[in-house]
């Protein structure tokens, strides 16, 4: 193992990790917003919109992110829509992640039992009050493990950004391998970088999941 090589190039990884995280977090935040909107549309069975959301979910779940990105980055400029690689990354991640977040929120909304609505209503709460004080707090809590799992999934998916020439972690690793043939060192730093980003989130996710599943409220 060539430690001087690692010392020399780890700042490149740091920079790349910054880019991965910036785009990743922006995409994930947008995906959460899309997820909240779409799950509300499905939950309240909004006419017309729910059909559009259903089509979107199928398109998003049944196509790979890399193909979505190629279309955005190489395809759209041909009809005059020219997006920066970073913007493509955020849009792609939002398009992909939105459907996964929708599923997470929708299923936890539906997991709130009918009796919870009825007892809120029997106390004289309006629809909005029921949603705000009774349904949403419970649904948000139960959706946490699925949301964390989606966050990890989406951060992992950012690894394909190198395909549209974004200088992310994969890109740097590939570059170093190509330039210096220091394959072992380049890959080691790559694995380390992803572990440093993803392991803490994964551990937090496991703890939260255990909390929601085995204990619930009151611990």
């Amino acid at each position, binding site marked *: 193992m060539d430690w001087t090589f690692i010392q020399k190039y780890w700042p490149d990884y740091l920079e790349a990790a910054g880019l991965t995280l910036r785009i990743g977090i922006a995409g994930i935040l947008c995906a959460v917003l899309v997820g909240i909107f779409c799950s509300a549309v499905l939950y309240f069975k909004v006419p017309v919109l729910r059909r559009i959301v259903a089509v979107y979910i199928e398109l998003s779940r049944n196509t790979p992110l890399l193909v979505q990105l190629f279309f955005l980055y190489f395809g759209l400029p041909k009809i005059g829509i020219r997006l920066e690689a970073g913007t493509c990354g955020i849009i792609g991640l939002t398009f992909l992640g939105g459907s996964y977040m929708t599923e997470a929120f929708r299923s936890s909304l539906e997991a709130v039992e009918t009796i919870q609505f009825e007892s809120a209503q029997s*106390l004289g709460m309006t629809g909005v009050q029921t949603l705000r*004080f009774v349904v949403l707090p419970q649904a948000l809590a139960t959706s946490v493990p699925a949301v964390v799992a989606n966050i990890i999934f989406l951060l992992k998916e950012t690894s394909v950004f190198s395909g549209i020439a974004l200088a992310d972690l994969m890109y740097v690793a590939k570059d170093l391998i190509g330039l210096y043939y220091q394959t072992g060192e380049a890959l080691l730093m790559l694995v380390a970088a992803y572990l440093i980003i993803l392991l803490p989130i994964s551990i937090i996710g496991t703890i939260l999941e255990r909390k929601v599943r085995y204990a619930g409220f009151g611990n």
Partner: protein
Amino acid sequence: MSDIVLEVKDLVKEFDGETILNGIDLQIEKGEVVVVLGPSGCGKSTLLRCMNGLEEVRSGQILLDGEPVEKGARNIYKIRQRIGMVFQSYDLFPHKTILDNITLAPIKVQKRNKADAEREAKELLERVNLAEKADAYPRQLSGGQKQRVAIVRALCMHPEIMLFDEVTAALDPEMVREVLDVILELANQGLTMVIVTHEMSFARAVADRVIFIDDGKIVEENSPEQFFTSPKTDRAKAFLNTFEFEPARHKEAEFSI
């Protein structure tokens, strides 16, 4: 006549093309405890849910002090604040402490002062021997304790009438008593109540009047003493018989093993 709190007029309820309630007429006076009995699936729980505007009805009317109780009506939220309801089970809000469960609606719905609501909630908890559980969460309570909290939660809204829907049906037998004792005490204090239950001796003890429903109709209306000792109708007799067992049938068989 002015004593009538809740009135049900020719109520018809259908579900999936099946008639669940078929022309129910019922008047409940202030301070009266009415127990509704009947075989499972007879519609008694549905009747109770209709009384709280939780079910859409086909025809007929339910009036609380002369005002219609109707699902989807604009003022149903106001009406429901005056009717307390306790369900079979699991209806406490799991994400709130016991105290918050009780004060949520008084504070958010009735816009009462927080300190007042909490003081009253604590007094009520004291009365059902659960004062020390105020800061616990529902999952830390036994089924019987949860149901007592559910009763307190409904009471804290100062309802004019309370509806109890088989509140002990999902409880372990040893917890049934503590819940029924609370309801009995409320009855003694003169609270107006409609109770659906399967606990016959409790029904007999608590009721001012017994309503027996079968096939979506009121088959018999009677005083508890009369109903349990000499029911007027055959259907009520048959129903009461299902709670009796022939004693000592296996005593002799035991020796032959």
